[in-house]
Every structure is written in structure tokens, then in C-alpha cells.
């Protein structure tokens, strides 16, 4: 196909879109809605994933030492932790450091701590994991081993939160795929219907084109482009609206969510994700056109 024919196909597709405005307005709205929903869930997942990443940075196995633990027992515990292949680094926290950290995080509770007359916080050894998102089993085995050592009072593994947030991200992905997918299927059907009506309304022109020796590509090209243009435009507008939601949500609605603000928020899509929305829109439009052409020309 030479440049002139491509130009002609685009001009014809533009003409189809102008003439079928009401039909295409509906298709366009459905396309935008579908890809907006998919984009919003993607943006929500982005936010949850980045929250999970932040939480993961603090993931550690914390070994609380008994106040009666001897120096030798402490050294054994510390050596055991340090030698584990799962551990990236080890930090020892004295009761005084634990007290300072407590007061920094909960300054309102200074009175409570002072009224006790002594520091109740135990010394601890914090093992920062090499892979915070690694499988549970080896970490559990390490914890079980440490728990049996003399001088160990308690062990905590604070990965539960990041796991939950990550699971929420996966849930958001799944909901996005299901809801967005269903809406995208619906938008393909709507585009197909609009293009089909356009083809039928141009039946006379198509029959003339066949009789004067137009190739199938010449006749079908503009109808394919019609769906493609609609889809790309729908995907682009949806990507723009997701960006707008990510910008405006924290300003207008985010504060009303209080503590949940960090979790329920929209993070701007990456360039690749935005391009994916636009390409997805184009693909949906193209599939809609192909379905319409298949149905009409088969019959």
C-alpha cells in the first residue's frame, strides 16, 4: 500500500467517524470507561506495591534477649544470626537504644515509661534479611533454631504487614483484570456494533467499490482504521484521566481517608503502563472492527 492509499484510508476513516458521530460517541465513552477502570486499578496496584516496598525495607527478624542472658549466650545468638545466609546485616540494640527509639516514635508515652522507674524494654538483635520478600520456610527454620538457644526471650518477624499490603496489590491487580477485562470485552462489542452499523449504512458505496475493482484491503482498510482511531483515542483519554486522578485524589479526597490514605491512593502510571493503555485501546478498537467486518462480509 503506497502513501497515497494510506492517506486515502485515513481520510475515509475520518469521514466514517464524522458521519457516524452519535454511534461512535457511545463507543468512545465505553472505551474510555473500560480503560479508565483498568487504569485506575493498575494505578491503585502501583500504590500498594510501592507501599509494600517501603514496608519491606524495615522487614527484620528481631530476637529479644532475656535480661538474664549472659555475655557468652548473647555472643552465640549474635554469631548464629550473623552466619545465616538469609541475613544481610545485624544490628544490636541495647535497652537504652530501645528506650530512645520508643520515645522517638511515641513521645506522648514518655510519662508512662518514666513512671515505671526502670527501662522495661529488652535488648535485641535485629537481623535484616537479604531478600525481604523471600519464601517463608527457610526464615521459619532459622527462627525455630534461634528460639531454642538459651538467652532468647522472644522472636518477632514483622513481615506480616508488607505481606498483607502486597496481597492487597495482587487483589487489586486481579480485580482490575476481571473488571477491566469484562469492560474491555464489552467495549469491543460496542465498537464492533458501531462499525457494523457504519458498514451497513455504506452498503451501497461498498457494492460500487467492489464493482469498480477495489481490493478487499481498499474497502476494509478505512473501517479497520475507524476502530483503531477510536480505540487509541479512548485509551489515550483514559490514560490522561488516570494521571489526573493520581494528581487530584490526594488533594481533594485523600485526607478524608485518614490512616488509610497511604493504602487507598493512586500512583501515576509508568510510561510503559500508559503506552499499554493506549495500545490496548487501539487493539480493542481494531478487534471490534475486525469482528464487524468478519460478520458483515461473511454474510
Amino acid at each position, binding site marked *: 500500500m503506497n502513501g497515497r492509499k494510506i492517506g486515502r484510508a485515513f481520510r475515509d476513516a475520518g469521514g466514517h467517524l464524522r458521519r457516524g458521530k452519535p454511534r461512535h460517541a457511545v463507543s468512545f465513552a465505553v472505551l474510555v470507561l473500560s480503560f479508565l477502570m483498568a487504569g485506575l486499578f493498575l494505578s491503585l496496584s502501583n500504590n500498594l506495591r510501592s507501599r509494600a516496598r517501603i514496608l519491606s525495607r524495615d522487614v527484620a527478624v528481631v530476637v529479644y534477649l532475656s535480661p538474664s542472658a549472659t555475655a557468652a549466650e548473647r555472643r552465640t545468638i549474635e554469631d548464629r544470626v550473623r552466619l545465616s545466609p538469609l541475613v544481610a546485616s545485624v544490628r544490636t540494640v541495647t535497652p537504652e537504644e530501645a528506650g530512645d527509639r520508643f520515645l522517638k516514635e511515641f513521645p506522648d508515652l514518655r510519662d508512662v515509661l518514666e513512671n515505671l522507674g526502670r527501662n522495661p524494654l529488652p535488648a535485641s538483635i535485629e537481623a535484616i534479611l537479604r531478600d525481604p520478600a523471600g519464601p517463608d520456610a527457610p526464615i521459619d527454620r532459622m527462627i525455630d533454631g534461634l528460639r531454642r538457644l538459651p538467652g532468647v526471650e522472644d522472636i518477632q518477624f514483622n513481615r506480616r504487614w508488607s505481606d498483607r499490603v502486597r496481597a492487597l496489590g495482587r487483589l487489586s491487580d486481579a480485580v482490575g483484570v476481571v473488571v477491566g477485562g469484562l469492560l474491555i470485552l464489552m467495549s469491543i462489542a460496542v465498537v464492533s456494533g458501531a462499525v457494523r452499523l457504519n458498514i451497513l449504512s455504506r452498503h451501497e458505496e461498498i457494492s*460500487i*467499490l467492489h464493482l*469498480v*475493482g477495489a481490493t478487499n484491503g481498499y474497502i476494509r482498510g478505512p473501517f479497520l482504521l475507524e476502530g483503531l482511531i477510536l480505540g487509541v483515542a479512548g485509551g489515550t483519554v483514559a490514560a490522561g484521566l488516570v494521571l489526573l486522578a493520581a494528581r487530584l485524589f490526594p488533594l481533594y479526597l485523600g485526607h478524608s481517608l485518614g490512616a488509610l490514605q497511604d493504602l487507598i491512593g493512586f500512583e501515576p502510571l509508568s510510561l510503559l503502563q500508559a503506552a499499554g493503555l493506549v495500545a490496548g485501546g487501539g487493539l480493542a478498537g481494531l478487534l471490534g472492527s475486525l469482528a464487524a467486518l468478519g460478520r458483515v462480509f461473511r454474510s
Partner: protein
Amino acid sequence: MIEFSHVWKQYHKPDWALSDVSFAVAAGEMVFITGPSGSGKSTILRLMTRECPPTDGRILIEGMDIRRIPSAKIYVLRRTMGVVFQDFRLLAERRVFDNVAVPLRVLGLPSKDVKRKVFLALRMVGLHHRIWNTPAGLSYGEQQRVAIARAVVNNPRLLLADEPTGNLDPDLASEIIALFREINRQGTTVVICTHDREIVRKFAGRVLALREGRMRERGTAP
């Protein structure tokens, strides 16, 4: 140019639209195919343009056995011919220029060539002054002339016309047939299907008469 050899066509059982029809049209001839409505005239044209295949028999157009042309290549056959219909089949919302330009745009000709050829075709049918009108602003006779201009704009070797005077009064009908005669004189083979025997009588040309799908008589109009 055209050869029908024992051609049979059936749309729906048990009726035959054409039964054992054979004839030949030489290059440069002007031929009338006559007969009452339902006699099979339009079927012959539809077979020539490969809008439908014959049920049996062989049809050669310029040596091409049209049954053997794959669907994707039918456009090659159709580019060798122009077709005119009783109902003109013009695109109502397009201007005369755009209607006549359709076959040239399909070929992907440059805009300059399209303009020149469209103007020449419209001048030949005497409508170059109506180039920017829409069909709705033209009389029936003028609309048929536009349809003829569209059919001949890319100089086809074969011009087919299906009841081209069916919607016209006798004077306009004579003018249109005279136009076909002029096109034929310039070397184009012309096949006109018509039920109007008066028109056929007025113009010299070979006549093939059809009745109930069978070729009944072959002769030459005076």
C-alpha cells in the same frame, strides 16, 4: 472478448435463471440483450462481473475463465470493465466529481491525473459544468450520464449496462443510447441489457433475445 458456453445458473431450486445459454461478443461490438423482466438479462451481467458464479458452463472474458479467478483477484477482472445500472447507483452525499473519481481513486492514481480524467469523462457526457453538484441537484438523465462517466473514466475495454434507460423518458433514453454508441465507436465493447425493444429498433447493433432464461433469437437491429 466475451464467450458464454452452455451456461446454466440457478439461484434457488428448482427454477433456472439461465438454461444452456451460449453466445459470443467480439471486441469492439455493441450488443443488446433483450427480454422481459425475469428473463435472465441481469443474471448475465452479474455473471460477467462475477457477482455470482455460474452453476454450470464456461464464461470467458478476454480469455479469462471467470470461474477460475480466485475471489481475492476478482478486482483484476472488474478493472477491465465499467458498469451502468438502471438506478444509477451514485453516492448521494458526494459531488459529481467524487462519484466519477471513484474508479480512479481505487487505482491509486495521483490527484492531478484523477482531476484530468474526471473532467474529460464529464465533458464526453456533456456534464463538465455540473462537476461540483451533488446527484440530488441533477435530473434523471444527467444522473445517468454521471453514472456513464464513472463507468468509462478509466477507459475500460468492456462497458456493461443493465437497463440504463429504464428510468428515463423516450427522448432521454435515445440520448443515452446514442452516448453508448459514441463510446462504442471509440473502441469500447458495449453490452446493454434492456427490455425496451423500441430503443433497440432505433439503434443498429446485434440483438440477443432471452425468454425464461433461454436464448431465443439472435439478430441485428436495422
